[in-house]
């Protein structure tokens, strides 16, 4: 096991990827991802790893270049945020349909307008239907571990899908934390070089990215859906292999003091730690509250989620994005759909909070738990908004 070092999380994410024997990286700078891009450049320019570094002219070209690189058989990596992810949007479902296991870090940031560089999840949510495996991290260690695991998951022959690791912008990317790195030899054992199912090379000429007529398009959509749903068991398998090798345990859904809780709150990403502190304070006062943390957002771990909330009376879902003009935040909307057919289900309250870097303190989480006491709730409500 490696030694503990103090390091900024964005830099640590790049260092983690440097352990993964990548072949091609293509990045375009955007706040708050830029430290990942800069550090990746340092690593490659210093010759610490043998990879091509493409300084693309846009995020659209970053993901496009990686589509080409991955199709040619390379292990390919990029990192982006907010507007950059929005610019990639067109290519994301093409990459997953072509079954290219590209891995990406997304430093979660609010989407314009107005322009705002701070943290929320409004950038990743419009990408949720694009067929990517989508993971969330709560701290720097998770950013390291999941960055490495993402390649293993994405490249699994049963999966062959792209994977995005969400690292909350600033609130995580710019924190300096005590972190532990596995050694290069350990990672090499865990993650051998990519063995592509098919690749662009004259030794075996193939055509990739062919168009589909109405008689085959639906089948391709279903094939992607089956593959993405099937990815869950591989995610779980890779998590358990990681736990065996490196001692840190991960779950697709994780809980905190949830066993006998009457009220549960669901969070994703870095807010989980603040919410956990709120749970501790409320537990001290005898309140039966707990926390559910969704680590795997796509594919949605339905069974694990249902098991995690079994027995609770009220579920407060905190969304850090809004489906404008719709039925609330995207996470709560999914959860309500999943629970609709259940005989025994909790009351679901949806709070949209922490947008565009609006800070949420322990007290704010206590207040959000308090919404469970209201007799009547809206379909969703904003928390902490000035009227």
């Amino acid at each position, binding site marked *: 096991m490696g030694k503990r070092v103090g390091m900024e999380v964005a830099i640590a994410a790049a260092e983690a990827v440097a352990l993964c024997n990548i*072949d091609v990286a293509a990045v375009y700078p955007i706040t708050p991802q830029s430290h990942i891009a800069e550090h990746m450049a340092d690593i490659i320019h210093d010759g610490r790893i043998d990879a*091509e570094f493409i300084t693309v002219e846009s995020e*659209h070209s970053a993901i496009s270049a990686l*589509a080409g690189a991955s199709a040619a058989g390379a292990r390919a990596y990029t990192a982006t945020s907010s507007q950059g992810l929005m610019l990639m949007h*067109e290519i994301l479902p093409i990459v997953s349909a072509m079954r290219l296991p590209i891995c990406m870090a997304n430093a979660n940031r609010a989407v314009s307008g107005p322009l705002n560089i701070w943290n929320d999840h409004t950038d990743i949510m419009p990408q949720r239907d694009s067929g990517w495996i989508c993971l969330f991290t709560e701290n720097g260690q998770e950013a390291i571990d999941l960055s490495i695991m993402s390649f293993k998951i994405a490249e699994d022959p049963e999966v062959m899908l792209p994977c995005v690791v969400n690292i909350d912008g600033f609130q995580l990317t710019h924190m300096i934390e005590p972190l532990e790195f596995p050694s290069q030899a350990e990672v090499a054992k865990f993650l051998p070089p990519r063995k592509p199912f098919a690749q662009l090379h004259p*030794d075996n*000429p193939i*055509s990739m990215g*062919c168009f589909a007529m109405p008689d085959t398009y639906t089948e391709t959509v279903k094939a992607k859906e089956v593959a993405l749903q099937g990815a869950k068991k591989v995610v779980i398998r890779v998590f358990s292999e990681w736990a065996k090798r490196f001692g840190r345990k991960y779950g697709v859904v994780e809980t905190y003091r949830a066993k006998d809780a009457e009220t549960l709150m669901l969070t994703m990403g870095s807010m989980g730690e603040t919410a956990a502190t709120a749970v501790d304070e409320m537990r001290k006062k005898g309140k039966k509250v707990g926390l559910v943390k969704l680590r795997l957002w796509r594919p949605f771990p339905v069974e694990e989620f249902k098991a995690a909330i079994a027995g609770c009376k009220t579920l407060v879902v905190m969304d850090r994005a809004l489906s404008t003009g719709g039925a609330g935040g995207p996470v709560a909307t999914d959860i309500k759909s999943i629970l609709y057919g259940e005989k025994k289900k909790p009351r679901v309250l949806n709070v949209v909070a922490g947008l565009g870097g609006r800070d949420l303190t322990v007290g704010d989480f206590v207040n959000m738990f308090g919404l469970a006491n209201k007799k009547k709730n809206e379909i969703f409500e904003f928390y902490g908004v000035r009227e």
Partner: protein
Amino acid sequence: MDPVQNFEIFAPKLIDRKEYFSPGHRACQGCGEVLALRHILKALGDDVVVANATGCMEIISSGYPQTAWEVPYVHVAFENAAAVGSGVEAALKALRRKGRIADRYVKTIAVAGDGGTCDIGLQALSGAMERGHDMIFFCLDNEAYMNTGIQRSSATPFMAATTTSPAGEAIPGQRTWKKNVPEIMVAHKVPYVATACPSYPIDLVNKVKKAAAVRGPAYIHVFSMCPTGWRCASEITIKMGRLAVETGVFPLYEVENGKYRLTMEVPEKLRPVKDYLTPQGRFRHLTPSNIERIQEQVHREWEILLNKVECMQPW
């Protein structure tokens, strides 16, 4: 024209007999673009990977579960052929260095239409050329968005009627002159830039071979006749390409490290543009004074090109 320097252009039998783009594809009768593609692939041989933009050539060649491509081929989207090519080139380089693919040189090419090059793909093209990827970019220019139904692009010539630049009572067709993308590529200091036309197949093949010999970026702008979009008879495709060249509407030249050279026989006097415009339905609304205006512009552009040939020194 120097007959010694151009000796090889008189040897058509040197062209590869092998077909790399199979028959049975869905291109229109008389398609100049697919003819260009066939010659380009013959010039490149087996060791090539093609990144293709969405467009006519993609749609006629790669309807699942069939493909016309005998060489490795990838299509991702419309505007990103150059970016996809960048990634392919980088990957081939890295994987060869790391011993994960055969240790031999494989050329990457990107192919796009005029929309995928001059309009929506211009940024990706500029980025790829500026970064110096070892890649040939081919613009197969049929002067409009033919795949979507003949809409104007920035490569559509002045006054041509398209479905979005119709010959109306108030506005008689395309209002702008054709964007000169080869010049933009020269401004990027791309080591080899050329114009070509499948009506001159040996010239085209030679230019592709020259571009392939460059270990860096190269750009070839191929004038690709389109009877469907130009509203002309499909059996006069080859003739239309020759007329475009002979009238000076689309001169054939190459720019090696900044040095311009005409690769066509320089006539004492260019043919009148009227000969090129008249057979095409897209120019049928032109008045004699319209034609005169186009003629003046073609002469002016031709003089500018001759000046460059005479004056520009290699970098």
